[in-house]
């Protein structure tokens, strides 16, 4: 992928920055400037919370170029709590099985490197929500 495209997408990729429709208040991700629901212009920036749950999932064994070093890896469709469905890798699962409805949260991780000499590409993944330790 060309460097310019990584650069253009950096805010939505690093931090789940989308849009909200000023007419019908639909939360939009990825940003597309036109509300997919009411068709009005929607350019207002909206910061998603990063929380959601697993809507569906699979495991990728035959990874596309740039991702082979990470395979096998879990891939999911996540329903964000604000509404949109997002396709993303899951991470930090350890031996935990993935379940539909599992609460997850967004983390910014390294997605791939553009070869040995190219740029490093960062973006959102989702992990099981971090359990808080009780102070002893």
């Amino acid at each position, binding site marked *: 992928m060309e460097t310019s495209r990584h650069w253009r997408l950096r805010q939505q990729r*690093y931090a789940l920055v989308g849009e909200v429709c000023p007419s019908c208040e639909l939360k939009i991700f990825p940003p597309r400037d036109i509300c997919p629901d009411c068709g009005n212009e929607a350019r207002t920036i909206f910061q998603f919370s990063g929380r959601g749950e697993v809507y569906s999932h699979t495991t990728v064994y035959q990874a596309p170029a740039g991702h082979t*070093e990470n395979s096998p890896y879990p891939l999911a469709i996540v329903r964000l709590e604000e509404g949109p469905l997002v396709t993303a890798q899951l991470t930090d699962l350890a031996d935990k099985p993935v379940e539909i409805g599992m609460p997850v949260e967004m983390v910014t*991780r*390294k997605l791939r490197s553009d070869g040995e000499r190219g740029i490093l590409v*960062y973006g959102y993944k989702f992990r099981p929500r*971090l*359990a808080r*330790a009780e102070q002893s």
Partner: protein
Amino acid sequence: MPENHLMKPNRPVGFAGYGAYIPQFRLPASEVARIWTGGQGGLPIKEKAVAGLDEDVITMSIEAARNALARSGVPASEIRAVWVGSESHPYAVKPTSTVVAEAIGATPHTQAADWEFACKAGTEAIQAAIGFVGSGMAEYALAIGMDTAQGRPGDALEYTAGAGGAAFLLGPAETALCTIEGSYSFATDTPDFWRRANETYPEHGERFTGEPAYFKHITTAAQSLMESTGTTPDDFRYVVFHQPNTKFPLRVGKDLGFREDQIETGLLVPEIGNTYAGSALVGLTAILDVAEAGDRILMVSYGSGAGSDAFSLQATGLLSARRSAAPDTLSYVRRRTEIDYATYARLRGKLVTK
């Protein structure tokens, strides 16, 4: 009366927020011994934290910074500097700090820079941030110490070279969770540890790393700071040192006159390893997770090459209410997935695949 070299800004400064990050994988030291010494010999720690395939100093700094911002309640747009100290910056040339600043929403009206000084790059960034805020140039500045430390396979450092660190948002003392009374720095040209350009693994001066390096610099820095502030070890509820292994910080603490109960809260090295630029800092976050208003804390970092930065800190009444806004450091310590040496070799890129 010795000359007073305490560094203090004109305007009082403190931590508006703090946040830790430690990756989930743990490599037991016994695994390194199993591969390289037939299981013989003593172990410097229990286990170390290892970054996953999709983690590096950039991603780890982002999470720690988000935790620090959550505790502060300060909008990212008010940050005027994002500084990341590390010896594992993912790029040789291209800043870690701009990616971190972009991800947390601090761009574009901000300073951004990467710092280097072996294991004390993080505390140097904090001191610079004290100057930035303390001079009135900025209201808020973010300083991070984070590493995914390198250790040559089979080398003594492979047992301990861990991953993790912490972020601190510096701001005015009036609204801080913890104030900074002052700091003192001690640096000399001491060749105890280095990594030449384009080399993958560092070299170290064997026994030279102890007395003239770690102990000399930490002891002098701590004593000078206490002299300058008119304090003794009894004035501090907690103390945290750079932690290359379990033995060194315990010994230097004892030499300086601290009790074990002052040291143990911030002593994370047995369970996460030496996180280099993050080492003393992530220990400090564990202390801030439990400190009460008025508790004084002494922090002394150490970086090879060599130098120490010592800080006198004091928790404020705002700390207890704000710390629950982000995961505490123990949550990260206890989020533990044990791996064997083979998985470690894969995660750390030690396997030749082409």
